[in-house]
């Protein structure tokens, strides 16, 4: 019988199609369906002390995720020639979570675009700027919906 329904965000016939071709079932791809109930049941079955530990770990992990920035603006002093600016781009691009670097040369600002759910330590940014040969000044974190414009603070 050809069943048409929903499972894990996919139609059941799509699920069966994937399974028949050896592809991963949708739940493996991050579609949990009613797996939450299973999680809750499992959570309730563990000891109280273990539950507290799990909650603590979840809070520690979730904190940085929910506090993640979308961009970071770094004021860089000493930046006065395009040939010198290359080192800055080179040092900032490999930082974890950085997806793009834009140097606002005239204003002396660098904008780091961050990947979803990532954040970056201020000390790491300052170290990278110094390794490029410049002096880091103000660092402004831009959260979603912040509407912050570094140009207003730049010269």
């Amino acid at each position: 019988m050809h069943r048409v329904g929903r499972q894990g965000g996919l139609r059941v016939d799509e699920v069966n199609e994937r399974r028949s071709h050896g592809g991963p079932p949708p739940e493996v791809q991050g579609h949990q369906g009613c797996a939450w109930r299973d999680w809750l049941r499992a959570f309730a079955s563990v000891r109280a002390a273990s539950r507290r530990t799990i909650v603590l770990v979840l809070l520690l992990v979730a904190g940085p995720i929910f506090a993640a920035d979308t961009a970071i603006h770094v004021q860089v002093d000493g930046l006065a020639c395009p040939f010198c600016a290359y080192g800055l781009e080179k040092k900032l691009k490999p930082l974890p979570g950085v997806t793009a670097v834009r140097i606002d040369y005239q204003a002396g600002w660098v904008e780091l675009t961050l990947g979803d759910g990532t954040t970056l330590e201020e000390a790491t940014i300052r170290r990278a700027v110094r390794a490029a040969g410049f002096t880091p000044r103000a660092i402004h974190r831009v959260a979603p919906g912040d509407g912050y414009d570094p140009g207003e603070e730049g010269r």
Partner: protein
Amino acid sequence: MIRTLAAGLLALVSLAPWPAAAIPIQTQTALTAHEGGVIVRSQYRTLRATGDPTAADRELRVRVVPTAIVYGLTARLNLFAIVPYVDTELRLDTPAGRLTRGATGLGDVTTFAKGRVWTRDGPGWTRRFSLIGGLEWPTGDFHRTDALGEIPRPLQPGSGSYDPLAGAIVTWQTLGWQVDADAVYRHHTERAGFAFGDTLDVDLAAQLRLRPRRLPARGLPTYLNGVLELGGRWAGKDAVDGRADPDSGGHTLQLSPGIQWVGTRWLVEAGVQLPIVQNLNGDGLETDYVITSGVRWQY
């Protein structure tokens, strides 16, 4: 023969390029490459010296292709190596007719370190002070011969000697202009009965951004810079078998206009050195000009 050549050939040793992070053409800069950064700078330099006060009517041409490599050990300490390829040619009248002598080959490699010891950074400007110290190694051949026998030492690609150098550089860079000044002393040691005189170079360079006239609100622009440099050199007399050569040494002052096209990873430049003062000892040849063209690329 050495006596009549040496002074005019002082310029040969002055043809080594200064591999700068940025940016003058002849003058050093206190700016340094970033940590882990590599800058390769290659030039083509050609010198012509004439005006022989003697009956030999000497005419000297020197062409050098120096390649300089800079490595940023840290953002404050850079290591340098300059590898020159040298071609010298001297024409002169003799009782047997007009002769040409010269040699081509690898010159003396110079290695040195530059340490940035003082920095003041502000928004859109920087002022820096650096010290350099290093050694010129006797990698170039200095025993070349031609039909007339051994070629005079100043025409050889290499000096044969270990020559230490030390200097200081100061730079003030802004978004619109830059000023650099350096003083570099080079001590030439003796090898096989010959030693170039010690030299002191003092240079001053000014650069002005010609294009773009107004910087864009966002992003990194490409610069067109006008460069004007003033280079002074004091050179001691060469020593031949322990005796000072009276036809060598002296002091010169050169004015060097130039132009540079500067991107974020590359730089193209050209300039000409024009002597405005040439106070040379004895019968030294006077430099007519030195033309420089070059590229830099950074990784």
